[in-house]
């Protein structure tokens, strides 16, 4: 007589089962499809592709400047600093007031009338950027001291809700009429835009003229954004690798308690991290405003979120990762705008976030987590 097995749904134990690869295969197919579409478009119209690539590069370098702040703060405090995007917005507005209201970019020529006008504009623009960075640093330190520091030992979600609150406060306080006003404000650039086109060599687009058909155009703003962004990357690498405070930052990011036991003033390091990130975001805000020349108080939300996605994509906590992730994000967004449709750009950014978190939660450069948070 046989013993009757009571199990109605037999559990099958397979060591190697095809279902393991269904998911990865599906996403690999999706990736191949995207690559195929891009390849077809590259072959069909290489000039357009290069133009989209350049605009994506410009966007990516701006995102890189914001993503640094996210990745550094997350690396140390494990907090998604929602207000970072709004610090970026404040940077843009500071430069707007400095340029349009106080004509700060003209001070070298006003003080030294004999100075070469070109040099004067360069010094003036650098002053404006430095001022924005300073304002953003002060703002970020204030936010950190007032809002985040009392919650350092609270649950992470409390801190996250506080960060959302700070972000809201900056957006809507800025939208009051006596602060920034809720309108879209056309941004006055501190210097002239000069554009070049590439067709049988590099030519300048003369004022009042259009670039010829089938040519790739780029402007001095593109070059400046790339230059400033790379400069910031190098400076940050130096800061983190070679200086004492950088070593302290890395120690805090590795183990905050142990760092405190080693005599590191953790609160100061955290404030410093916020300040450095905010300074870069401020510079990014100025350059973003110069490039796209329209500012309003909710300017920072979406670039901030996308920069966060970029930081996650590169591996949160990793500085080169944030840079690479931001470049990929910029390309993804530009390609979406170019080949699918402009409104889908936000959708693609968050789709990338979800796919990255599913396939490789630590990001491209991230190290595997020591423990589950």
């Amino acid at each position, binding site marked *: 007589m046989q013993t009757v097995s009571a199990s109605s749904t037999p559990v099958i134990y397979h060591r190697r089962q095809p*279902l393991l690869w*269904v998911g990865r295969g599906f996403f690999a197919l999706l990736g191949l499809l995207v690559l195929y579409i891009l390849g077809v478009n590259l072959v069909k119209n290489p000039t357009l592709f290069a133009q989209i690539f350049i605009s994506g590069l410009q966007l990516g370098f701006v995102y890189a400047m914001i993503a640094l702040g996210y990745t550094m703060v997350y690396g140390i405090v494990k907090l998604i600093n929602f207000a970072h995007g709004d610090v970026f917005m404040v940077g843009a507005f500071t430069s707007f007031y400095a340029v349009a209201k106080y004509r700060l970019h003209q001070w070298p020529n006003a003080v030294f009338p004999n100075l070469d006008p070109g040099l004067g504009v360069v010094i003036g623009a650098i002053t404006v950027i430095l001022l924005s960075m300073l304002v953003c640093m002060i703002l970020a330190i204030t936010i950190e001291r007032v809002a985040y520091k009392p919650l350092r030992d609270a649950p992470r979600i409390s801190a*996250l809700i506080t960060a*959302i*609150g700070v972000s*809201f406060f900056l957006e809507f306080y800025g939208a*009051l009429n006596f602060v920034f006003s809720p309108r879209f404000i056309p941004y006055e650039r501190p210097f002239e835009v000069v554009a070049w086109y590439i067709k049988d060599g590099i030519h300048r687009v003369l004022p009042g003229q259009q670039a010829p058909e089938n040519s790739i155009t780029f402007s001095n703003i593109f070059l400046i954004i790339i230059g400033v962004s790379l400069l910031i990357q190098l400076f940050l690498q130096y800061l983190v690798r070679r200086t004492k405070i950088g070593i302290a930052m890395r120690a805090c990011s590795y183990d905050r308690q142990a760092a405190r036991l080693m005599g590191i003033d953790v609160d100061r390091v955290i404030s410093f991290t916020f300040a450095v990130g905010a300074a870069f975001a401020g510079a990014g805000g100025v350059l973003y405003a110069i490039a796209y020349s329209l500012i309003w108080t909710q300017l920072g939300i979406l670039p901030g979120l996308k920069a966060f996605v970029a930081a996650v994509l590169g591996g949160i906590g990793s500085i080169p990762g944030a840079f690479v992730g931001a470049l990929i994000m910029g390309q993804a967004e530009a390609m979406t705008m170019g080949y699918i449709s402009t409104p*889908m750009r936000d959708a693609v950014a968050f789709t990338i976030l979800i796919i990255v978190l599913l*396939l490789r939660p630590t990001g491209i450069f991230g190290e595997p987590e020591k423990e589950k948070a």
Partner: protein
Amino acid sequence: MELGFLLGSLVKIIAIMAYLYGLMWVLARPSIWIKIAGLIGAFAVVQLALTDINGFRLLNNFDNGLLFQACAMTMVALGLNLIYGFNGQFSLGQWGFYGIGAYAAADITYRWINGDARGLLVLGFGALLGTLVLIGINKWLQRFRGIPVLSSFTLYLIGALIAGVTAVYLGNQLNPLITPFLGTAGEPGPLNTPAAQQVIYFLSVILAGIFAAQISFLFGLPVLTLGSDYFGIATLGFTIVVNTLMVNSDTILPFPEMKGGRGMIGIPKLTTWFSAFFFMMLVIIIMRNLIHSSTGRSLVAVREDEVAAKAMGIDVAGAKLFAFVVGSFFAGLGGAVYAHYIGFLSPGTFDFLAGFNPLIIVVFGGLGSMTGTITATFGWIFFLEGMLRVLLSQMGTEAPTWRFVLYPITLLLLMLIRPQGLLGSVEWGFLKGPEFTPVPRSHPEPAHESAA
């Protein structure tokens, strides 16, 4: 006038609170007949106040609107409280599901009154087939062990797509059978009488909830495996994506009647106090019974400690997904009720900035307190909308902005002073859960009879 209005507003808030707490007290009585009588009485009192008797109405149109909005928002906020308060998953996607529910239900009734049954048929078949397919795949996958989430997600996605395509095909095929009975907007057919429209409206609300629940299942399955704050960002992204799709509903999505960013007009205003009250009480009762069941206790256990919950034999991933799906179902119901009250849907309403509203309500009221959520919703709607009316006359267009300046400050203070919310996890009356009184045994068992 301002002072009088403010006082009136205060009296209304106190009255509505007394009403809600009284209702919850009555529902806590043990006798089922008292409960039913309490429900009917509570419905009748407000219905009477809303009825025009000899030109006198206790609650005017403004209060009426606030009441319906508060009912819809209660459903949304209770759903979020289930996800975040009781199960500990920080979700910002509730507003997206609210919008999905609103648009889905509005599409059904809008098409129905304009002589097109496809909305109802497609969503109805979609709800049926989709649920069957998802449950079937779930049963099939239980035969295997250790399947990565990606694989199961892919299978569910393919199944859902097949079910959706079938539903659209069936809807298009069956539509000509029903269309003759619908008539046109000018000449309503036999299936377009007010009573029939109410039936369709109730169906549309439930179908919208099921649709939101199905989408939340597909979305939540992979995303809930992420950590807590990554989950928050991913759900925020979901809200943004849904809003983008709403803005482009007539270009990217094939719904010309939704009119994209211009907003969907002409939705029949079918929400009555009966339906709003019915669905709100439905959500409250379902959720209260859920929370105090063993499933609900497992949800709370997952919030408290995932590892310990797993050690106790709780399916942690399943519990998270369950809470997320049920919470989104409530959000879909709320959205449907809202859409048929307001009669106009614009993507601006479902902006992700507005999506923080339910979060603020839930955090204010208390995480893991249904009483707190209901109190906070009604207080929030009546207080803030009332304040807005006063402020608008004083400050013009800046008033809404000031409101959003004051929210975060209050939120920050709350996080610093009382992070568990105003009511903590206190419950009142009916929401406190069933009281198990030990029944005295009439025949005490002999102690040593079976000892041998």
